[in-house]
């Protein structure tokens, strides 16, 4: 199961993911939701991701390449230790932009401003 909360502020959108990013409906849902965003900065908050498989890792690479092609910046923020471990095991730490936890706190400074869009979906 994967749940994604979307939080958009100006040119930045953060997809807060919780659950699992694995082959099937979960990976497809995240792909569709990420690809639908046109903001310049796309952040994937993976702090609540418990497990990810090769399809999930492949999706991160796919979204990273797609963002490059569209002049977007894709950053993985607040990646849990498990996710960072899987990224390292797959030798992707040199490919993906994985920020340390603090970068993901960008939204905290924007608390005073109401988000333009905020909703959630789950699969």
């Amino acid at each position, binding site marked *: 199961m994967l749940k994604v909360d979307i939080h958009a502020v100006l040119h930045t959108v953060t997809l807060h993911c919780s659950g699992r990013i*694995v*082959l*099937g409906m979960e990976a497809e849902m995240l792909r569709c939701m990420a690809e639908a965003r046109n903001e310049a900065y796309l952040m994937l908050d993976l702090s609540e991701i*418990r*497990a*990810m*498989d*090769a*399809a999930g*890792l*492949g*999706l991160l*690479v*796919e979204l990273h*390449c797609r963002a490059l092609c569209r002049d977007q910046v894709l950053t993985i923020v607040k990646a849990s230790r*498990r996710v960072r471990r*899987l990224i390292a*095991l*797959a*030798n*992707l730490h*040199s*490919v993906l932009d994985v920020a340390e936890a603090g970068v993901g706190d960008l939204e905290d400074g924007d608390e005073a401003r109401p988000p333009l869009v905020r909703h959630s979906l789950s699969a």
Partner: protein
Amino acid sequence: MQETSQVATQPRISREFTFPGDLESMVAARQALMSFIAPYCSSEIEEIDIFVALQEALANAVLHGCQNDSSKTIYCSVEIDPGAFTIIIRDPGPGFDVDAAMQSTEAGANTTTHGRGIRLIRSLMDEVAYRNGGSEVQLRKSRAAASSVA
């Protein structure tokens, strides 16, 4: 999803499963397998390691061994003893070139969307053995804290 047998003699427990070779059935199979395995895991990390490796092996069996065809059947067995989890997954496919796949997964950063499954399995499990030309894989993970099988 069919459980074909169960042997619960101490101190080893085992169960066999068969399921159709399509993605929908794979999700149910994974859930059934993890429901059997999870109670014997000593930590969440151990459980997730097995979950991810199992997911990869099942996905390979469904996508490559069965071409996502529900008329084909995948066999799976799980054996848990005080020392290790042992999982065997067998599909009816022709297998694959194990050596070539191993070599390609050991290459540097893979920037394609595929080809990470075998590397993940090998990283997360203590032993991985392919048989029958790759149509059967045996995964073994030592139990972190050996506890008696309930």
